C-alpha cells in the first residue's frame, strides 16, 4: 500500500519540527520525506495539518488478558485500544492464564496477535515457573519462542537466593529482565499506600520500604550478576533516588513508571474508590512530583500504561477485595500531555519516554521519522480534545483514571508496518 501524509510536523527525538512537511509510505516503509509528492499516485492522502507525526509509541507494560478468561478482554480488544492510544508496539506481561512460562504459550500469544492484533505484540515471559518464584523457567526456550524479556509480572520472587540464580542464568543467555520491585513480606496484606489516607480509612498499608528494599536488592543482585535489569513500575521518590545513584555508578539498569502514578495520588482512593486500587499503590504528592522529575531527567526511561483491563465485577467489592489495575492504554498519551499542559513535564521528556526510552530498553534502534525506516507511525492532533467515557472505550476494562473530563491530544491515525490500524472518526470514538 502506498499513502501519504501532508502538512505534518515530524517528531524527532521528542521535538516536533517547526516546518510542516509530507511523508510518503510505500510497502510498510517511509519511502520519502520532505519533498512535494503531489505528483505521486497514492491510495490514500491524509491531511496532517496541525498534527505531529511520531514514531509509533511503545508500551513496555501492558496486560493482554489472553490466554485467559474471556471476561477481561482479549488480544484483539486490548491491542485495538492500544492502537487508539497511539501505541504501535506493546509488551504483554507474563501473568496470563496459563502463565507464559513456556514456548507453547508464547507461540499462542504471537499467533493470536498475528491474526487478531492491531499492534505489534512483544511477549514478556515468566522468570520462574508459574511465576511462583521457586524454579527457573526455560529462559533460553522462551527467548527463542519470541519473548523479548522475562519478568515477574508483578508477582514477587520469594527468595533472594532464587532471584540471584535467575539473574545469573538470565545473564548467561543475555536475557533482559523486567522486574517489578516489591518485598512480599513488607507488602503483606496491604492494599494502599501506608500513609494518611490508609490510616484514616483503616486500610492495611503497603509501606514505601516494601518497594525501596526490593529496588535495592534488585540493583545489588543485578550489579553482581551482570544481569540486564529493567525495573518498575516505580511508585515512590526514594526509588527514583536509588535508580539515579545506580545509573550514575554506571550500572546497566533502566526504569519505568506507570502513567497513573504521574497523574494521581493516594487521595484518589478516598471514599474507597476501588478504581484506583493499584499495585504498586498510588502514593503521595511528593512521590508523584519525584516520579515526574525522574522522567524529566531521564532517570526513568519509559512511561508505561500498566494497562490492566478487568471486567466491571472485578471492582464491585469492598476496596481490599477489588482487583488492582486501571485501563489506561487508550489515555496514556493524553494523560501525559495533560501533565505537559500543567507545566509538570516537558513535551520532549514525555514523547521520549513513550518512544526512544522504551526502544532503548528493548535494545531497538532509536525510533525516528526518516527514510527507509519501518512505518510504525502515530499521528496526533495535540490541540484537539476528547472525553473518555466508559461506553466509548475500546478496552474491555471500563476502569479509567479519568472519566467525563476533557483530555488533550487526539490520536488521529496509527499505522503499524505501514498498515493503518486506527483512524479517528471524529464522532468521539
Amino acid at each position, binding site marked *: 500500500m502506498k499513502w501519504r501524509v501532508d502538512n505534518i510536523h515530524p517528531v524527532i527525538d521528542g521535538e516536533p519540527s517547526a516546518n510542516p512537511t509530507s511523508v510518503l509510505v510505500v510497502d510498510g516503509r517511509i519511502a520519502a520525506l520532505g519533498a512535494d509528492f503531489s505528483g505521486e499516485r497514492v491510495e490514500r492522502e491524509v491531511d496532517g495539518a496541525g498534527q505531529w507525526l511520531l514514531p509509533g509509541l511503545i508500551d513496555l507494560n501492558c496486560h493482554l488478558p489472553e490466554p485467559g478468561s474471556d471476561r477481561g478482554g482479549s488480544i484483539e480488544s486490548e491491542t485495538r485500544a492500544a492502537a487508539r492510544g497511539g501505541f504501535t508496539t506493546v509488551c504483554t506481561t507474563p501473568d496470563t492464564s496459563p502463565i507464559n512460562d513456556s514456548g507453547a504459550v508464547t507461540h499462542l500469544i504471537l499467533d493470536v496477535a498475528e491474526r487478531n492484533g492491531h499492534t505489534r505484540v512483544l511477549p514478556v515471559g515468566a522468570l520462574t515457573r508459574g511465576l511462583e518464584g521457586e524454579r527457573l523457567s526455560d529462559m533460553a526456550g522462551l527467548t527463542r519462542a519470541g519473548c523479548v524479556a522475562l519478568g515477574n509480572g508483578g508477582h514477587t520472587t520469594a527468595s533472594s537466593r532464587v532471584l540471584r540464580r535467575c539473574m545469573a542464568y538470565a545473564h548467561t543467555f543475555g536475557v533482559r529482565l523486567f522486574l517489578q520491585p516489591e518485598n512480599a513480606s513488607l507488602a503483606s496484606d496491604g492494599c494502599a499506600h501506608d500513609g494518611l489516607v490508609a490510616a484514616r480509612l483503616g486500610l492495611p498499608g503497603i509501606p514505601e520500604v516494601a518497594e525501596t528494599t526490593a529496588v535495592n536488592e534488585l540493583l545489588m543482585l543485578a550489579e553482581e550478576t551482570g544481569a540486564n535489569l529493567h525495573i518498575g513500575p516505580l511508585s515512590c521518590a526514594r526509588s527514583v533516588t536509588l535508580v539515579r545513584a545506580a545509573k550514575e555508578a554506571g550500572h546497566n539498569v533502566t526504569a519505568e513508571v506507570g502513567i497513573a502514578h504521574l497523574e494521581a495520588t493516594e487521595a484518589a482512593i478516598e471514599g474507597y474508590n476501588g478504581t484506583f486500587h493499584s499495585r504498586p499503590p498510588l502514593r503521595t504528592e511528593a512521590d508523584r512530583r519525584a516520579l515526574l522529575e525522574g522522567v524529566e531527567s531521564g532517570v526513568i526511561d519509559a512511561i508505561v500504561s500498566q494497562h490492566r483491563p478487568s471486567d466491571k465485577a472485578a471492582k464491585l*467489592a469492598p476496596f481490599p477485595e477489588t482487583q488492582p489495575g486501571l485501563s489506561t492504554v487508550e489515555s496514556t498519551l493524553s494523560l501525559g500531555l495533560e501533565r505537559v499542559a500543567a507545566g509538570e513535564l516537558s513535551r520532549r521528556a514525555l514523547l521520549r519516554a513513550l518512544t526512544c526510552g522504551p526502544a532503548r530498553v528493548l535494545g531497538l534502534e532509536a525510533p525516528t521519522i526518516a527514510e527507509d525506516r519501518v512505518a510504525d507511525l502515530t499521528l496526533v492532533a495535540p490541540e484537539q480534545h476528547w472525553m473518555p467515557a466508559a461506553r466509548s472505550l475500546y478496552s474491555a476494562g471500563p476502569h479509567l483514571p479519568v472519566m467525563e473530563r476533557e483530555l488533550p491530544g487526539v490520536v488521529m491515525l496509527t499505522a503499524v508496518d505501514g498498515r493503518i490500524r486506527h483512524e479517528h472518526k471524529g464522532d468521539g470514538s
Partner: protein
Amino acid sequence: MPDSSRRLQLTADGELRHFLAIEGLDEPLLTRILDTADSFIEVGERTIKKVPLLRGRTVVNLFFEPSTRTRSTFELAAKRLSADVLNLDIGTSATSKGESLSDTLLNLRAMASDMFVMRHSQSGAPHFVAQSVTPDVAIINAGDGRHEHPTQAMLDMLTIRQHMKTFSGLRVAIVGDVQHSRVARSQIRALNTLGVDEVRLIAPDTLLPHEPEALGARVFHRMEEGLRNVDVIIMLRLQHERMEGALLPSESEFYRMYGLTREKLAYANPGALVMHPGPINRGVEIESAVADGPQSVILGQVTNGIAVRMAVMSMAMGGQLNERQSGTSEGVASS
C-alpha cells in the same frame, strides 16, 4: 472522604439514611443521636420495653464476622423498636459457596428488607454496599475491618456525656492497639467532632498507624506522660494475634508498659473515667481492681449500647423512608 462520606450517609435534607462512619457527620447530628438515645433509655426501664417506630419493617443482621455481644444488642434494639429481625451468619453460608457479596445482598433486598446491620472484615464494605449495591436499604455499620465501629463510639460518647455532662474541656486518652482498632478510629472522630480539648493515643509504634496524626490525635509512647491531666481513659482490647504478628513481645510486657493499673491510673485527673469497649482481658489491658473499681463505667456502657442502636436505627429508617417517598435518592450509583 469527609465529604463523600457525608453525602453517602445523609439525605438531601441532612437526615441520616445510612450510618456508616462518624467521619463526615457534624456535631449537631451526633448530639441528636445522643439525645434520641437518652430518650430510649427510659424505654428500657419500662415493664413493656417496646415502641412501635419500626413496626412492619424488616431488619437483617448480616454478620460476616462472628460477634455475640454486638449482634445481640442490635437484635434487642431492633425488637424494642418492634421490627422483624432476621439474623444471618453469612460467614458460614453464602460467601463460602462462592456467592459474591453483591449477589448475597441483592437477594436479601429482594426479600423486602428495609435495613441491613452489617459487620464485615474488610474496611469500607458497608460503604461499598450503600454506594453500589443496595442504596435504598438503610445500612448500619456494625464494624468494618479496621475502619469504623460507629455505634460503639456513640455509646461511649453517651457514657461520657452522662458522667461529664459536656465534652468541652475534656482530655481523653485512648490506650492500646489503635492501628487495628475500628473502635478507636470512630472514637477519635466522635470526640473531636463533639469538641473535646484533646484526644491522645498511647501505644508503642507497632500498634499505631504509620502516620497517626492523620487521625487527629496527639501521640504518646508512655503512660506516665500520656495520662497526665486526662479526664477519660479508654482502654482498647488487645487481640492475641498481635503477639504472633511480631507487633508485641508478650502480653505480660504489654501489661507492664500499657496495662491500666491503680498505679498508672493515679497519673490521670482524680475521678477520671475508665472505659473499655469489652470484652476485657483482665491482667492484659487492665487490672481487675481498676476494671471493677469506682472509676470504671464499663458495665454502663453495655446498657447504653441498646439505646444508641435504637436511636441510630430509628433515625436512619426515617431518613431512608423519606428518601424513598421523595424518590430523589441522591448519590445512588447507577451501576
